[in-house]
């Protein structure tokens, strides 16, 4: 869709496609269908050789004289045994003995997150809520109160962000803090391992399940949409 719009303006495009069935219908000018799980458009993280193979295959389509072109990247490049889409909270049981104090747990995770920042050169997915990690306990209290059915809000919420959007940003930041902390703790783990750990073993995961349930129970479609992004 986007590629078609660009092409109409005289820009030659080549696209990476993750859902062949959609691409067949849309007919972008040139698309490379890749057999990778969602979140892995170029193949594998930290694998420049595979990323270059994908890019080369996509750029090769630009040499063709006419389209639409839909080519398949060879199946043998599929990365390991990762599932096509990550496990969801509803499919993961909470472990017995999950920590009870999410604020304390968050402070512990921040120490590992600092290790992550040191290792990544400051790169982090944390930062959508606008509340810095040093003051994140306030966000934890806010999400706990919301999950308990209270009429909760935060002064830090920007006026242009409706409450459900802000809840989503807060939940995303909380997850980013924990996910990156986990990657610092156990550098070899993949996204599936991290998701299973988060939803089964952390207090944060249990609070976010309840946040999702409260949003889902609302009649407001914006709240329901936010629920779908917090925990499903």
């Amino acid at each position: 869709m986007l590629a078609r719009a660009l092409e109409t303006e005289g820009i030659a495009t080549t696209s990476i496609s993750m859902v062949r069935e959609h691409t067949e219908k849309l007919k972008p000018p040139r698309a490379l269908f890749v057999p990778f799980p969602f979140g892995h458009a170029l193949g594998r993280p930290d694998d420049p050789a595979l990323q270059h193979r994908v890019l080369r295959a996509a750029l090769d389509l630009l040499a063709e004289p006419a389209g639409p072109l839909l080519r398949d990247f060879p199946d043998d490049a599929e990365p390991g045994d990762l599932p096509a889409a990550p496990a969801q909270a509803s499919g993961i049981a909470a472990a017995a003995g999950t920590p009870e104090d999410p604020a304390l747990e968050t402070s512990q995770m921040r120490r590992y997150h600092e290790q992550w920042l040191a290792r990544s050169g400051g790169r982090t997915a944390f930062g959508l809520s606008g509340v810095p990690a040093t003051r994140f306990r306030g966000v934890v209290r806010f999400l706990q109160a919301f999950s308990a059915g209270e009429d909760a809000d935060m002064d830090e919420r920007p006026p242009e962000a409706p409450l459900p959007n802000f809840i989503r940003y807060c939940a995303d930041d909380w997850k980013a803090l924990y996910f990156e902390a986990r990657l610092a703790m156990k550098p070899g783990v993949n996204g599936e391992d991290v998701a299973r750990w988060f939803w089964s073993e952390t207090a944060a995961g249990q609070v976010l399940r309840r946040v999702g349930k409260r949003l889902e129970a609302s009649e407001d479609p914006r709240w329901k949409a936010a629920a779908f992004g917090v925990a499903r």
Partner: protein
Amino acid sequence: MPRLDRLPQLNRNNLLMLPVQVNDTTPFTVPAKPLTACRIAIVTTAGLHRRDDRPFGPGEQTYRVIPSHTPLAEIIQSHTSLGFDRVPQMRDPNISFPVDRLRELVARGELGGIAPHHYSFMGAQRDLKRIQEETGPAVGRRLREEGVELALVTPT
């Protein structure tokens, strides 16, 4: 993957329920120069933007401009659907935004150069009318004015 037959039922149904435009033909622009002389931009639907830029809201059909010299530590993703794994993006942003790989191709002489700006849209959209009619073509015109011939379109 995302071969649909390998997806969990819930994800498969979500994808199949997405309204997808059915087209019979496609606009097609043949690059005016060889790739070794073309400038390339990334146009992504990964919902990326500069850290100090406004995050995307759900269903937002506007775009964000990312100067191509922006350090990866200054880029953040507000497309955070639970339908995809965020860990690869955390580990290596080149997974959807391959700026380092493109620079390597330019250094090897396989591409002519990198555009001054990359562009980003929000992914997983249901209504695409404004992108199709307004914001998508606007990015195309900007690229043309910037002397860019090629766009690599990437999802999350």
